[in-house]
């Protein structure tokens, strides 16, 4: 029978095993990264706010994500009365699946460092990630409660609106790269000798802002604005399902960061690849590990608890050993791409956390105004400018950069021309 033969062929296929392995690895790494992203966020936020953050679970609280996860797993899984039970239980799963499945198409490094490389990669990613909306809408709707419903509406409206701006920003990159495949986009940046962020900084800024909005993070975190809506669409969720939403949210953050890196920041490319005297940047992975070792050692020396000192010393030791391994030329060559990719992703994630620590929150109508009346016209103008310059001068760095910056500035000025300029007020004490 043809079907059984097909199945047999499918299974014996070498690439299938490889892909499965990769999927498992990516999933594991991603889950860990997401868990520790929460820890990182809490720590960075705390430091920016003159606090220490989690300190109680493990030395410097590094076991906090595990404790959180355990707590959420052990909590009662509540389904509110009157909820649409099936949909309620299904919604977080949709969110999480949509968030994780997208990572199949992301190139983490050159060659085999990707699960699959479809030639419509970017479209696939956009499509799959837009499925996450269903998790949000259905979760909010099925809770049978007002605040989640409003939260989910806001969330979905926000996602849809900002996807337009992000999509337009991406299109200008596609124009430059001449391909929909993510690998090809990175390779094109390598050929050009310049990352896309230098070709079209305006699009990068737009993408970043829209990305922040799409992940529902401050200053666009209205769906979860606790001072207005308590918890947004996941108000009624608890325990494991809440954890799923949480994971989906942070996975989406990682996704937006990864996409930004691939599209604008040269993916796995090492910075200054073409500059010869900076080629010692090649040793950055080892150096980073040594640096981590020093930092950990310093933490250990500061600690007053004996067990902590031992732990940190061991950790430092491990880092040094790992650095030694990494410093071997073959290994160094192999992990080069992945290392730089990770570094860039972490930098963007850090920026996301940084925004959260700094900015107030927009109001919903203002959020929509920013999306539709600022970002989309700006993205359109950037797209048009890029297209014109590509036809006119070809793919050359300087004209593209200049034209884009000038075009962007002009657009912003035109857009903000209607605003009253008397926004900056000051009050001096008046004696009368």
């Amino acid at each position, binding site marked *: 029978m043809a079907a059984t033969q097909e199945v047999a062929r499918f299974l014996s296929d070498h690439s299938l095993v490889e892909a499965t392995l990769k999927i498992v690895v990516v999933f594991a790494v991603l889950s860990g990264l997401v868990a520790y992203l929460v820890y990182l966020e809490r720590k*960075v936020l*705390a*430091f*920016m*706010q*003159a*606090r*220490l953050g989690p*300190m109680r679970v493990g030395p410097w609280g590094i076991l906090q994500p595990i404790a959180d996860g355990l707590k959420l797993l052990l909590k009662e899984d509540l389904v509110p009365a009157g909820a649409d039970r099936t949909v309620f239980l299904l919604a977080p799963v949709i969110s999480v699946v949509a968030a994780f499945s997208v990572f199949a198409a992301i190139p983490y490094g050159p060659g085999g460092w990707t699960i699959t490389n479809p030639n419509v990669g970017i479209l696939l990613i956009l499509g799959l990630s837009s499925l996450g909306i269903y998790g949000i809408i259905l979760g909010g709707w099925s809770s049978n409660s007002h605040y989640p419903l409003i939260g989910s509406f806001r969330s979905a409206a926000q996602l849809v609106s900002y996807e337009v701006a992000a999509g337009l920003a991406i299109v200008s990159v596609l124009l430059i790269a001449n391909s929909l495949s993510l690998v090809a986009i990175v390779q094109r940046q390598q050929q050009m000798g310049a990352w896309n962020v230098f070709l079209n900084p305006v699009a990068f800024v737009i993408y970043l802002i829209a990305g922040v909005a799409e992940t529902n993070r401050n200053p666009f975190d209205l769906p979860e604005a606790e001072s207005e809506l308590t918890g947004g669409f996941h108000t009624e969720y608890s325990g494991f399902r809440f954890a799923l939403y949480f994971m989906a949210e942070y996975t989406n953050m990682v996704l937006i960061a990864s996409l930004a890196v691939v599209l604008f920041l040269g993916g796995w490319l090492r910075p200054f690849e073409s500059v010869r005297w900076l080629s010692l940047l090649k040793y950055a992975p080892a150096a980073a590990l040594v640096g981590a070792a020093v930092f950990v050692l310093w933490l250990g020396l500061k600690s007053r*608890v004996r067990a902590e000192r031992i732990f940190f010393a061991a950790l430092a030791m491990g880092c040094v050993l790992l650095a030694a391994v990494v410093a071997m030329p073959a290994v160094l060559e192999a992990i080069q791409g992945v290392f730089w990719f990770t570094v860039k992703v972490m930098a963007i994630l850090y920026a996301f956390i*940084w*925004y959260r*620590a*700094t*900015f107030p929150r927009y109001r919903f109508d203002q959020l929509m105004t920013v999306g539709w009346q600022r970002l989309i016209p700006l993205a359109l103008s950037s797209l048009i400018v890029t297209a014109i310059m590509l036809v006119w001068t070809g793919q050359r760095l300087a004209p593209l950069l200049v034209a884009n910056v000038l075009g962007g*500035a002009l657009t*912003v*000025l035109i857009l*903000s021309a209607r605003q009253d*300029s008397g926004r*900056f007020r000051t009050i001096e004490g008046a004696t009368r």
Partner: protein
Amino acid sequence: MRERLRELFLVDLLRGLRLTFSYQRPSATYTEQYPLERPPVAERYRGAPRLNNHPSTGETLCIACNPCALAYTENLIVVGWERTSDRKKMLTTFTYDLSRCMFCGLCEDACPVDALELTQDFEVARYSREGLIWDRSMLEEGPEPTRYTR
């Protein structure tokens, strides 16, 4: 124009970002790891009450005169005494209901002999309401300070 340019290049937002970034230096951290490091309390702090004994003789300083009980009408201090043979008052019991205390210090002010004192101890939480009613021995010995371990 200057304003426009500042707005264009997001100067306002960048200034805020710079500020929060600069606060990441370890020296800016303000947290006290409370159970691990006990915060210093001011000398005049009004915390858990104590009934002072004479440092050398160990006899109570309280003369059972009662103004502390009258100073505050929340009725939280009950002084019991009996007359000795020479018609002097002798303190027998002294209860202090911490659950009603608002640590205003009026009773301390009223004490003419420095017997009743609000100490610097601030850990007065108990697991039961009854635990907040302190008798004389508790007031004289003071509460057992909580020890924290990791």
